[in-house]
């Protein structure tokens, strides 16, 4: 099963890696590559966050700290030494991971530090790291990276970012997949539900939490290292903004924390929204909607899209198709905006409270699961 999955990931990776080559043939504009790089970036960040938080329930508000360490590792080395930037990426991951493990080593021994106290503590870690880097590395002037040399086979800059971003996202999601399906994942789910009971039934909780945190922070650092090059100029205020924790939380909650695909779904959706409504006219609306969406998800769809979609696949797909067709025929406009509008409709459908849905829509439209079951029983007869 794991080998099949690995093969699947490799195939998806190869197909996507070929995407830049097809630009002439498909005729899409260049910004699509950058758009997709950002989708990969957010996928890596959200998925890495979810390896700890989604699986074990330890809710971190400080993921930006580890991402930031990654950004600053690459930025500092590239600006101050001759080292090729590709080599700094693993280092960025390792340093972020070391920081994570140090925090975990202290925090995970203290049983009272769960829930909101853990969240606060990780938030404080983010600010401490920002303050340390500000004084030791940044000095208040920021670091200017500019263009970095890299091997030719990676293509031009946006192609290179696309490919490397894709690679990191694939690695992260594959790690999340492996954890989800391994002993580690099972143990983390048990910790999520009741840590003391899990420990009593033989789950080495401390070690497992450390492993989850180590992996989670490694991939955050890796993604951060690459993102330094994309940003090209980094400063403390920008890198350690609260938007990073806000977005990874939002993305994972939206997509669903219980499944390895959840954060990916959330990252793609939120990134699409941000891109589609990035026009300054919509800035306020977009920001308000971001915060509002977080609240709405918590109140009306705490289990996230992935779970809801399984139950409401048929109406959701129908609605999506309808919206796409109407837009294509009657309205038009930028393709990412059309995509975003379609997503908005689907999310609205998914957010309808279960009770209400059951009495109104569920009565007429069977769930996907029940259709599957019917087909299966029909085949047996």
């Amino acid at each position, binding site marked *: 099963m794991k080998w099949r999955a690995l093969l699947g990931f490799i195939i998806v990776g190869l197909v996507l890696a070929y995407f830049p080559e097809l630009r002439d043939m498909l005729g899409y504009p260049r910004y699509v590559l950058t758009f997709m790089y950002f989708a990969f970036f957010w996928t890596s960040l959200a998925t890495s966050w979810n390896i700890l938080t989604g699986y074990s329930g330890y809710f971190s508000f400080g993921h930006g700290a580890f991402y930031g360490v990654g950004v600053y590792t690459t930025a500092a080395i590239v600006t101050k030494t001759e080292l090729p930037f590709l080599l700094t990426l693993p280092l960025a991951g390792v340093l972020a991971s070391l920081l994570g493990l140090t925090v975990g080593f202290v925090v995970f021994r203290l049983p009272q530090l769960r829930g909101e106290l853990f969240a606060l503590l990780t938030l404080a870690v983010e600010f401490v790291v920002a303050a340390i880097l500000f004084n030791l590395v940044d000095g208040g002037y920021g670091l200017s990276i500019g263009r970095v040399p890299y091997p030719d086979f990676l293509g031009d800059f946006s192609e290179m970012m696309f490919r490397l971003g894709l690679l990191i996202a694939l690695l992260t999601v594959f790690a999340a997949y492996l954890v989800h399906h391994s*002993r580690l994942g*099972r*143990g983390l*789910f*048990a910790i*999520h*539900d*009741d840590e*003391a*009971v*899990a*420990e*009593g*039934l*033989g*789950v*080495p*909780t*401390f070690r497992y939490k450390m492993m989850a945190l180590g992996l989670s922070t490694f991939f955050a650092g890796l993604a951060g290292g690459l993102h330094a090059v994309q940003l090209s100029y980094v400063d403390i205020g920008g890198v350690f903004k609260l938007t990073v924790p806000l977005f990874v939380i939002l993305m994972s909650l939206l997509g669903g924390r*219980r499944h390895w695909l959840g954060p990916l779904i959330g990252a793609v959706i939120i990134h699409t929204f941000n891109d589609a409504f990035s026009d300054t006219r919509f800035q306020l609306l977009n920001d308000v909607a971001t915060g509002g969406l977080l609240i709405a998800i918590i109140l009306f769809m705490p289990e996230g899209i992935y779970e809801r979609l399984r139950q409401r696949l048929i109406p959701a797909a129908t609605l999506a198709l309808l919206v796409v067709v109407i837009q294509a025929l009657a309205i038009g406009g930028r393709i990412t905006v059309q995509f975003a509008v379609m997503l908005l409709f689907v999310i609205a459908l998914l957010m309808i409270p279960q009770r209400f849905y059951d009495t109104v829509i569920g009565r007429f439209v069977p769930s996907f699961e029940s259709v599957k079951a019917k087909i299966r029983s029909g085949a047996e007869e």
Partner: protein
Amino acid sequence: MLTCHNVIKDFGGVRALAGVTITVHEGEIVGLVGPNGSGKSTLINNITGLTVPTAGGIQFLGQEIAGNPPHRINHMGIARTYQIPRPFSTMTVRENVEISALFGMTQGISQKEAKQQAIEWLDFTGLSSYANLPVTKLNLHQRKFLELSRALATKPSLLLLDEVMAGLNPSEIDESVKMIRKVHSSGVTIVIVEHLMRVVTSLSTRMVVLDQGRVIAEGLPETVMKDPLVVGAYLGKDYA
């Protein structure tokens, strides 16, 4: 097999265990009884490592275990049930048991084997028809049996049962008595905490009575129940 030596446990100002010394031999069913608040659950918590004794030692199979992390104690062969069931609430019934099969004594089994074993243990406790339901669908008596399946799935050599029968009806109690006998005859040593005297006295090979964190009597069920100290502890001094 298990020796508690002068175990003391304080909670702030409250002394829940005031120097408990108990030995459990291999093959026994020890009935651990005592009035409410006498420290039975606290003793189990200390043996399984959920809490660490304030003072005193606990040896299992010749090794000191007090202060060890609970998962290591579990891997040495001790499992317990909770007085108030604490299932993993987002999992199905089978997944609950899989966790302990996967992580208990026989480590390193594959997830497939763990699933197989989980199904077997659910068969044993009569829960197999609920295997794929979320645990939230279970009633109290089923949750207690789930506790038992989970503990058994870790393959313990010593099983600590904290009031598995409280709140069950007579036929369910008979069922669980049979089950415990079966577990015992498969070679598991058992310590059973129970308020139902009829059940404990019939099940246990030896009894230990706790009162206010102290052992006040110990011995064969018939003799212990006649001990004036025990009668006094349960009914008040006047009856002694």
